[in-house]
């Protein structure tokens, strides 16, 4: 029965993939490019949801884990000419190793201490690139996944190629993450999150399960980092600023931090906000300084509003309301 359910879900992902494929052929280049960005955010936010929402560990440093993935991908691609698919696999593996190390430290920390440690990582790690010339310094290294295969036709643009790669990676990683969350590991994480002592009493090795969560989350973040640097074409410290880590967390909260299915909400919002800010700024003609800071202001406002009014995210909120309604109808 359980197996059948999994297969059903797989069908859903295949159908979504087909819809994305159709959409990608119909919309203009800008939307395709934005679609690729949304896919990147979907992957990145799902890594936070897995870690924070399910295993209950806070990370302010996922930007740094993304950077690890991105640098691993670009170095393997540029130095060893690895095929595109393999570069993403390498990004996942190396970021996961980084995550395992971080997780080992994290298992001993909780709450504000863990937040502080990961925050330090987000600030410090990307600027390491300035110290080693192989990492390209502030200017960064170009990351070229190559042109789309000629068999796809003349009109097949680079942006569409990015979109295909990113969307496919997002679908695969979402499917994997969703399944992991429904597996024994996911249940262990949730048990540990709710009550560590109770979980330990029922035979769960809590710290090992926490480290595992960090490892998997880091692997997914590494994939997101590699995808991000693919869409912007460069890996450099400036691609992974502290604000990236914060906006991912915001995206996760908007999505509903414990509901993977809400991840699109966060991703779409993060991509749409700069657009909206730009439109607002153009309409009212504000100063350059405000234009630059407006997206950040809007994200923060939205974060505060979400926490105030829909603390569990819109999807969870909707579910609760439905459940309550169903319960009332029953009576």
């Amino acid at each position, binding site marked *: 029965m359980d197996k059948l359910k999994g297969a059903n879900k797989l069908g859903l992902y295949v159908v979504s993939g087909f819809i994305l494929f159709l959409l990608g052929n119909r919309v203009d280049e800008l939307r395709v*490019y934005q679609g690729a960005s949304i896919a990147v955010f979907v992957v990145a936010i799902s890594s936070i949801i897995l870690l924070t929402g399910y295993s209950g560990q806070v990370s302010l440093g996922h930007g740094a884990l993304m950077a690890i993935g991105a640098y691993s991908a670009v170095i393997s691609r540029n130095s060893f000419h690895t095929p595109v698919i393999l570069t993403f696999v390498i990004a996942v593996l190396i970021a996961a190793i980084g995550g395992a190390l971080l997780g080992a430290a994290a298992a001993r920390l909780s709450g504000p201490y863990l937040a502080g440690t990961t925050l330090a990582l987000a600030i410090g790690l990307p600027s390491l690139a300035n110290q080693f010339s192989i990492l390209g310094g502030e200017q960064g290294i170009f990351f070229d996944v190559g042109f789309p295969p000629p068999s796809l036709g003349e009109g097949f643009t680079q942006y569409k190629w990015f979109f295909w790669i990113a969307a496919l990676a997002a679908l695969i990683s979402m499917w994997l993450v969703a399944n992991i969350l429904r597996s024994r590991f996911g249940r262990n994480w949730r048990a540990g999150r709710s009550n560590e002592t109770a979980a330990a009493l029922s035979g769960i090795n809590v710290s090992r399960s926490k480290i595992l969560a960090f490892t998997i989350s880091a692997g997914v973040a590494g994939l997101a980092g590699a995808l991000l640097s693919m869409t912007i*074409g460069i890996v450099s410290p400036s691609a992974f600023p502290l604000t990236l880590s914060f906006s991912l967390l915001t995206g996760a909260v908007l999505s509903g931090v414990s509901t993977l299915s809400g991840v699109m909400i966060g991703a779409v919002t993060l991509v749409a906000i700069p657009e909206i800010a730009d439109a607002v700024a153009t309409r009212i003609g504000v100063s350059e300084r405000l234009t*630059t800071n407006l997206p950040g202001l809007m994200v923060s406002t939205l974060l505060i509003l979400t926490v105030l009014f829909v603390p569990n995210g819109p999807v969870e909120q909707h579910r609760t309301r439905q459940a309550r309604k169903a319960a009332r109808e029953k009576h």
Partner: protein
Amino acid sequence: MKAMNRRKLFTVCATIAVASLAVTAIPAQAAEVGVSSSEIKLGMTLPMTGTASPGYNKIPGAVKAYFDYVNANGGINGRKLTLVVKDDQYVPTLAVAKTNELILKDKVMALLAPLGTANNKAVASVVNPGARGIPTLFVNTGFSGFADKKKYPTTFSLLPSYIMEAKIMAEYIKDNFAGKKLGLLYQDDDFGDDALAGFKQAGLNFDVKVAYASGSQGDKVSPAQWVTKLQAGGAEVVILFGVSSATAAALGTASVMKFAPQWILGSVGGDATTIKASGVPAGVLYNAVGASFAPATTDTADEYVKLFQEIYLKANPTETFDNNVMVGMNTAFLTAQALKAAGTNPTRKSLIAAIEKSGKNFASAALVPLNYSTTSHVGYNGYWFGKYSPTGDLKPAGGVYTVYTTDSGNGAVVKSTYKRPAMPAKGLPN
């Protein structure tokens, strides 16, 4: 219950898919991207905020002031010129994202004067306007590589290259400061490397070299470290080859630390307005040597300076007319001529062809010739030297512009005999 939810989800997905397919009708293709019957749209990326922005953030205002002047006089063949400006904060990844926006969202016809060596390199390699036939006019960097037509087929240089500048500067130092201990402060990226290549070519050796990371001028500690190193090395003549904000930081800190060598400022950084904006008195510039290819901004006897100043101050009455504005307006002036030369219905192709064909003969405020041809995308190729007045204005020695020209290769540095043609009537393209 669960099954019903899934069905609902499918329905929603399908509805969204169908709706978006129905809504997105493929737009009718215009004659050329960014060109309509009433408008020609151009896009620019540069730092409008952030550490590197002071001084440069006046360029869009300067370009728009001239474009508005053209538009008020009938535009280019009846089309008005508009400029879309995006802030890249001097960060290559942002420059890439913003250039993508300019091309995909704003649908500009061409990129105009995008600023910064590292940024332009990133854009060229990632966005690749060259392969897509999108003209990149008059890049605002002196990196010699951008004149390489094979590598950057749609890019046109404007500023003399940093190699040229370094070669000419080396000549000036040999003539005026032979035997003195030399110091160099330069930006540790392609911008600085280009200058190093020029100095090496000219056989100029430094007693002390200090490299700074782009952006480090904004922190509190770095500038003092630069000055300490230069001081410790005993430098008597110091070349500052950095952006305006770094030059301001170096000069300001040196003045506080009572380090007063003979400064020689690269054309990129020696700008009084920026130095004042950084909270450093313009007086620190006094007696420093500087280089420029445009006439001095105080030289109101010059017909271009007079007209540009008039147009700019009318549009921006509270601003100062300085060298960034001068160069920005001159760039806009060249752009208007290029678009005019591209024919009654300009296309990206005809625009590039027009600059290659007749760009050499475009009127220009500079005291140095343009070098465009079907085989060369090199813009200006020379400089004159002068000293800064107590108010921070660069003035030619003895009131006479002595212009030197050279190339980015092995060519010698020669005194130029170029005579600037007269300005076209009202400063509008013929």
